[in-house]
């Protein structure tokens, strides 16, 4: 993650303050009597299911936050609370500093028409509309003229690489292509905030990889504020600036991928990180030491490089290397022994 995101001066684009979502008839009553101490088991006995349990976090502008959890962990529920597809039982959610939960229906519709886009697991394309009609749909709902919306949609078709298939129906496309349409549709109104609900889970592994690359390319161009939900830990590591790991509605850990792999906060998180090939995730930055001018050789490596990509040359050099940042300024030094430890040892 880049450093500008750390500065807490900017108001976050998305901000949640102790958000609860509890399904069941007397959820609110139970929640009030529990004083914020929600235990999934006791609630279940009372006939309620805990979806989201006391979630508080913020997402900065341009940041990609990935919510990771297994099925039933409440990750999709959390996303739906923030997009207000379901109403949170209690807590506060702010979008660009505006209180989401106190918005009128009209304001909400305006917000969705201009600021939000969402991609769905099962694509959720309208079966009666062609590719181009599907993509133009949010624009037409907004009231954009047919010609303008079609032009914009055509632009989007090109962006996601579906040129030549504008007049196909969703049923005539492969899963990957359908999700490209879903992505294009969610981007058509040029939203600031982009929600993705397990967008690649329904795809084959190879296609999934391809779509992830495509997604990273798009994000490189567009720089949106993103909430991305997935059950795939590897996917989370590949894409995220920060990852929130959820279990039973509780956010177990919310941190950068490096920190999660290196310092799992709970046993649950640790289980995910155990099998992760660290050299493929960690950057040089995360294992470098403070710069020691006496010991270091003149060979330089970038702090943002993934360890695996440089491992061979580092191990061959057998001396302590100098680590530099983007501007070629020296930020630390790297002992090859640490690289060996990352790859082979615990």
């Amino acid at each position: 993650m880049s450093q500008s995101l750390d500065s807490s001066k900017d108001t976050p684009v998305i901000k949640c303050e102790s958000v609860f979502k509890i399904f069941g008839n007397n959820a609110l009553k139970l929640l009030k009597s529990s004083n914020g101490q929600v235990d999934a088991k006791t609630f279940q006995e009372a006939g309620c299911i805990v979806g989201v349990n006391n979630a508080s976090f913020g997402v900065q502008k341009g940041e990609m936050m990935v919510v990771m959890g297994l099925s039933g962990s409440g990750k999709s529920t959390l996303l739906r609370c923030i997009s207000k597809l379901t109403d949170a039982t209690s807590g506060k959610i702010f979008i660009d500093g505006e209180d989401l939960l106190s918005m009128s229906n009209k304001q909400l519709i305006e917000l969705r028409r201009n600021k939000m886009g969402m991609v769905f697991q099962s694509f959720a394309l309208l079966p009666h509309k062609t590719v181009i009609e599907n993509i133009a749909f949010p624009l037409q709902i907004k009231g954009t003229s047919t010609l303008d919306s079609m032009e914009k949609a055509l632009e989007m078709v090109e962006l996601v690489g579906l040129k030549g298939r504008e007049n196909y129906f969703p049923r005539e496309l492969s899963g990957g292509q359908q999700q490209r349409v879903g992505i294009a549709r969610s981007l058509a109104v040029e939203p600031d905030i982009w929600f993705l609900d397990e967008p690649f889970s329904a795809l084959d592994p190879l296609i999934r990889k391809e779509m992830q690359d495509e997604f990273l390319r798009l994000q490189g161009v567009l720089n949106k504020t993103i909430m991305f939900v997935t059950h795939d830990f590897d996917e989370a590591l590949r894409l995220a600036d920060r990852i929130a790991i959820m279990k039973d509605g509780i956010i177990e850990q919310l941190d950068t991928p490096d920190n999660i792999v290196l310092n799992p906060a709970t046993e649950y998180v640790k289980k995910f990180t155990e099998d992760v090939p660290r050299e493929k995730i960690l950057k040089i930055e995360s294992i470098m030491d403070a710069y020691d001018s006496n010991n270091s050789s003149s060979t330089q490596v970038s702090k943002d490089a993934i360890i695996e990509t440089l491992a061979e040359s580092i191990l061959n050099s057998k001396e302590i290397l100098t680590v530099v940042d983007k501007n070629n300024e020296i930020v630390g030094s790297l002992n090859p022994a640490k690289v060996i430890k990352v790859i082979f040892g615990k």
Partner: protein
Amino acid sequence: MLINFKNSRLQQFILLFFVFLLLYFLVPEDENSFLWRLPPLLKDIPLLINNLLDNLMFKWLTVPVWDPDWQMYEDKPIFRLITRSIADFLLFLIIFIREIFLGGLQTIGSITGDSLKGFKWVYLPAIPWTAVVVGLFILGYRLQGLGLALIASIGFFYVSIFGQWEPTMETLSLVLVTAPICFVLGLSFGILGYLNKKVETTLQPILNIAQTMPHFSYLVPILVLFGIGDHAGAVATIIFATPPMIRLTILGLKKISPEVVESGLMSGCNRFQLLFRVLIPTARRDILIGVNQVIMQCLAMTTIAAFIGAKGLGFNLKVALNGLKIGKAAEIGICVVVIAVVLDKLSLAWANKQKDYFANLNFYKKNIAFIYFIILSIILGVIAYISAFYFEKGFNYLYLIPFGEGLTIAPILDAGVDWIWETFFYYLNIFNKFLITYVLFVMRDAYLGMPVVSTFVLVMGAGFIIGGVRSCIIVGALILFIALSEYWNRALITAYMATFAVGVSAILGITVGSICARNDISTKFILGICDFFQTFPSFIYLIPVILLFGITDTSVMIAAIAYASVPATRYTVEGLRSVPSSLHDAASMSGVSNFQRWKSIELPLAFPHIMLGINQTLIFALMMIVLGALIGTEDLGQIIMGCLSRPNGAGIGLTLGIFVSFICLAADNLIRTWADERKKLLGID
């Protein structure tokens, strides 16, 4: 053995049947015994209904209305004013459309009033039939292509040259008025039901009764409320054809994946946009099937509406059947099927049509088809005008071929019928006599000899075994309602006919279905046949059976069996074909023979679905049996039919209709409860 009794339905049913038989033989036939027959405590219901209608129509809430003829105010009941204005409105629409096709002076007359009476030009000229055929060709071509264009135009060409143009246009005008009304009503109620749970739970039983009640039973009440004529036919049609539309709308909307709804919300739809641009279009497939059903039901009903004065093919068919003119009746029947097929295909093509956003057409190009149509119509109109001088005898064949003045194949058909009669009469007669004496009468007597207490034990016991106390009470209450009326014996006769028809249809349907489900080609073939036979209005089935068996119970039975085998076959094929291929592979690897595969893999899995088909079969069979009263049976249908010509028939007709509906609902409850449970157990949706 007995330890298992709680879990073994078979043992429970055997015990139930044993008790039933015991009661059957032990209870003596005694008219005063409540065990034999219940007293008719509810016999006043028809009277109550009549009084209610009478009160509504003539007494309740009168308002003064200015009567221009008498130059004074007159008190008229408001309900009657409402129904009469609905009737007038419908009648105006029907006549308006009718006069477009056939010409006439009522439409213009009704707008201009009396001032223009007597002028010869106050006459809306008809579009020449040639122009209608050409118009259909253009429409079909525009909507889909040459194939549809040919089907539509040739179909109507046939209708015209066979001299059925006038009745066909009369029927068509009725369909063109009622179908859109049914569509709008059905869609609106369907949407309401989808949005509001309470509305849905209220609608559900009403729909159930409306769909299982025989058509004839509400003809008389409509007659009372709306008077006799085309408008009454239209009302009956609307009542009959709207329920499936509501059903399919709710079904379609419920099937939409929640993510599609969410995607609509996230696109910033407000409620109306969500409804009209996301929900309804996404449910389009089911709604289209609904439209299709509406058109078919409207056509089927227009024939029955002939009994309350609707003009058209149905009326002529009725006349032909009454006069036993089989050839003529068959000819008319073909016309009904032809317009059914054409309307069906056109409406589907219209709904599937795609829009081209990049064409950027000018006015001329956009409306080219319409412009062609106008030009050709004018040309054909001129030709028709000129040809009037050419044709003598007053018939202008290029303008409108009058009824009965076209080609006809009726003599050939009649000759064929005569030949069949002469050749096979002996054998048919033997079969007929055998069936009646040794099967039907025996069965009828057995049913009539059933003490009421044993009937209840059997029915409620079955309900208890299948669905517990709840089913037991529901089924018992439905049957009790009938048992407390004067018509229990008639209901038993209806039940015996239904049992026989359903039994034979089920065996026939399951056998044919199982054989045809063997491979893809025969599956496609048999489903096509089912589609084809389902487009026929039920009326049509009576034509060939009267031809073969004359006016007997056998005819009705065979018509019912032919009609009711269709759903049994269809559901069997569908059920068998839906067995997952992985199971087939597993079975093949275990080395099953074809019969083993059918018996131990396909049939158990498909059986719940097949049972739902049997449910449909029962409804179809009952419809046909009641309809069969036209050719004379002794069941409930006969009385319902008789009500049509009785002054106080409304109450009895409606009550008996409800009885038939209750028989259906009782069976429906048992079968559905069982099938749902079974499906859940098997883990199939």
